[in-house]
C-alpha cells in the first residue's frame, strides 16, 4: 500500500490513519516488527519527527508497542485490533449513511444499492 | 590549517607557474645552442631570442596577474563562499596567499637567473665565470670589510620586505575596492594609487625632514655605507606592510559582502 498524503490535513494524523489501515489489512500483522522511524519516514517521504509523533500516538492507543531493546512491534492483542478495526468501519459507515440520508435515500434503497454493488465487486 | 591553505594555494598556482618555468628553461636551452654573434644575428636566432625574452617577461607578468587574481577570485568572488565558510581565521587566508606569492616571485627570479646562465653558458667558460665572481667578492670585501655580510643580509631582507609590502598593498587595494557595490575595480585602483602616494609622502617627510635635515642627512654621515638608514627604510616599509595587513584583515572580517 503506497503512502498517500494530502496537503491540506496535518501529516501526522494522516500517518496515523495509514498505519492503522496497514494494521487492519494485515500488511503489518499482529506482533510484526516495524521498521525504524527513520526508515518509515523515508518510505513515506516525511519528516522523522512527524513519523515519531504518529507512532507515539498509536502507542498511546495500544496498537503499537515499544520494547526496550527490540524496537517497535504491532500489538499481539488480536481482540484490540479487531475492535479498533470495527470502530473505524463503523465510523466510515455512519458517515456514509449520513450522506445517503442527506441525498434523500431511504434506508431500504441504501441497502439495495449496497448489496448490488457488493455483488458486482465479487466478480 | 595555515599549512593546509598553503598546500592548496600552491597546488592551485603551480598549474600556471610550473609549465611557464619549463617553457622558459626549454627556450633558454634552445637559445644556448644558437651561438650568438652580436654582430651577426640570423633571423631564426632573432626569433628564438625574442621568444625567450617574451617568456621571461611573461613569467613576471604572470606572477603579478596570478597574485591579484588569486586574492580577488578565490576570496572575493563566488569561490569566497567556499573559502570563508572554512573554519579558518581570515588572517590565515591573507598569509597563505602572501607566502605563496613571495615564493613564486623568488622562484621566478631564480629560474630567470638560471635561464640566463644557461644562455650565457654557450660563450662562457664556467671556471672563468666563477673566477670573475670571486674577484667581485674580493673587491667588495676590500671595500666593506666584514660588514659585507651585513650588506648582503640587508639587501635580502630589504628585497623581501619590499615584496611583502608591495603584495599587501595590492591586497589592501583589492579589499578596499570590495567595499564598493558598483565600482569595485575603480575603487581598487584608486586606493592603490592613493595609498602609494600617501606612503611616499610619509616616507619623504621622515627621510628628508621639513628642513632638509631629516633622517637622510643625519645618517649619511656614516660610512662606508649608511646601514642604519637602510634599516630605517626597511623598518618603515615593514610598518606600512603591517598596516596594510591589518586593514585587509578588518575588511575581510567585518565588511565582507559576497555577491
Amino acid at each position, binding site marked *: 500500500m503506497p503512502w498517500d*498524503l494530502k*496537503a*491540506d*490535513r*496535518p*501529516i*501526522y*494524523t494522516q500517518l496515523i490513519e495509514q498505519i492503522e489501515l496497514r494494521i487492519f489489512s494485515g500488511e503489518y500483522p499482529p506482533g510484526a516488527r516495524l521498521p525504524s522511524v*527513520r526508515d518509515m*519516514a*523515508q518510505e513515506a*517521504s*516525511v*519528516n*522523522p*519527527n*512527524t513519523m515519531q509523533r504518529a507512532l507515539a500516538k498509536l502507542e498511546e492507543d495500544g496498537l503499537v508497542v515499544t520494547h526496550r531493546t527490540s524496537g517497535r512491534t504491532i500489538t499481539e492483542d488480536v481482540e484490540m485490533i479487531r475492535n479498533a478495526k470495527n470502530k473505524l468501519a463503523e465510523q466510515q459507515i455512519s458517515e456514509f449513511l449520513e450522506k445517503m440520508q442527506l441525498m434523500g435515500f431511504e434506508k431500504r434503497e441504501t441497502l439495495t444499492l449496497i448489496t448490488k454493488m457488493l455483488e458486482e465487486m465479487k466478480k | *590549517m595555515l599549512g*593546509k591553505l598553503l598546500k*592548496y594555494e600552491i597546488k*592551485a598556482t603551480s*598549474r600556471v607557474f610550473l609549465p611557464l618555468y619549463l617553457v622558459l628553461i626549454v627556450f633558454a636551452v634552445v637559445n644556448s645552442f644558437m651561438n650568438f654573434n652580436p654582430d651577426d644575428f640570423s633571423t631564426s636566432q632573432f626569433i628564438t631570442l625574442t621568444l625567450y625574452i617574451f617568456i621571461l617577461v611573461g613569467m613576471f607578468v604572470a606572477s603579478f596577474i596570478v597574485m591579484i587574481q588569486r586574492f580577488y577570485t*578565490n576570496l572575493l568572488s*563566488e*569561490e*569566497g*563562499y*567556499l573559502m*570563508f*565558510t*572554512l*573554519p*579558518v*581565521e581570515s588572517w590565515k587566508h591573507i598569509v597563505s596567499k602572501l607566502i605563496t606569492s613571495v615564493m613564486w616571485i623568488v622562484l621566478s627570479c631564480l629560474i630567470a637567473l638560471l635561464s640566463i646562465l644557461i644562455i650565457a653558458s654557450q660563450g662562457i667558460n664556467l671556471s672563468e665565470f666563477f673566477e670573475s665572481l670571486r674577484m667581485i667578492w674580493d673587491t667588495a670585501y676590500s671595500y666593506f670589510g666584514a660588514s659585507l655580510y651585513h650588506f648582503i643580509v640587508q639587501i635580502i631582507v630589504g628585497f623581501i620586505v619590499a615584496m611583502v609590502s608591495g603584495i599587501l598593498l595590492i591586497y589592501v587595494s583589492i579589499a578596499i575596492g570590495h567595499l564598493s*557595490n558598483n565600482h569595485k575595480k575603480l575603487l581598487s585602483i584608486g586606493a592603490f594609487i592613493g595609498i602609494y602616494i600617501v606612503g611616499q609622502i610619509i616616507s619623504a617627510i621622515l627621510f628628508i625632514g621639513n628642513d632638509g635635515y631629516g633622517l637622510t642627512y643625519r645618517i649619511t654621515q656614516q660610512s662606508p655605507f649608511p646601514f642604519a638608514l637602510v634599516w630605517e627604510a626597511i623598518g618603515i616599509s615593514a610598518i606600512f606592510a603591517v598596516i596594510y595587513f591589518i586593514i585587509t584583515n578588518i575588511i575581510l*572580517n*567585518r*565588511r*565582507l*559582502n*559576497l*555577491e
Partner: protein
Amino acid sequence: MNAILECNNIKKSFGSKHALTGIDLKVERGRIVGLLGPNGSGKTTLIKLANALLVPTSGEILIDGKKPGVETKKVVSYLPEKTYLNNWMSIQQIIEFFSDFYSDFNSEKAYDMLKRLNLDPKEKLKNLSKGNKEKVQLILVMSREAQLYLLDEPIGGVDPAARDYILETIISNYNENATVIISTHLISDIEKILDDVVFIKDGGIILTSTVDNIRDEKGKSVDALFREVFKC
C-alpha cells in the same frame, strides 16, 4: 542543550537598504525548518549572518550559544544558492579538500552518493553541467556530520527527480541533534518534510508555526497559506 540557532533583534542594513529589520528567532535541535519568503525578503541575508559571511548591523546571532566565527563554522554546513566551486579541481580533489578542512566530513558517504548519482569522481568540476555541479555541492554539504545545515534554495533549478533525491537525502541524513534550515520559495515540494516553518517578509518574521498546526488550524497546506499571505 541550548538552541542551535538564536537571533536576538538582528538587524542588517546595506547602506540605505534594510535587509533585516529586527529578527527574533530560536531554532531547536533536531528540527527541519523551512525559511519561507519571496525573493528579497531577507532569507539569504539571515543565512549569511549565521555563516559569518556577514556581520549584523545590530543585534546578536548565536550558533550553539556562540558568536559566528571559526568555532561555529566547524559545526555549520552551508549550501549557498550559487555554484561556488573552483574550476580546476576534479570531484575527487574537492572531496579531499573538504575532508582536509572539516573534521566531520564523511568521505565514504560522499563517494556513495556520487555513485548513486552516476557522477565520476575523476571528472573536472569545470566540465560538469550546472545541474551536476549543484548535485556535487549538495553531496559535499550533506556528507558533513554537522549540527546545523543551512540550505539556500536547494531545489531551485533542479529537475523533479533530483528534487526527490535531495529531499530523500535530507530525511535520511536526519539525526536528532542536527537541525536543517531550508530556505526556499518552492513550498509544496518540501512541505511534508518540514517540522516548522518561518514566514519572512521584507526583512521581518511574520509567522512561525509547525506545519501540522497550520494544516490543523487553517485546514490548508502551508503552500496554500503562503500564497494567501504573500499575495501580490
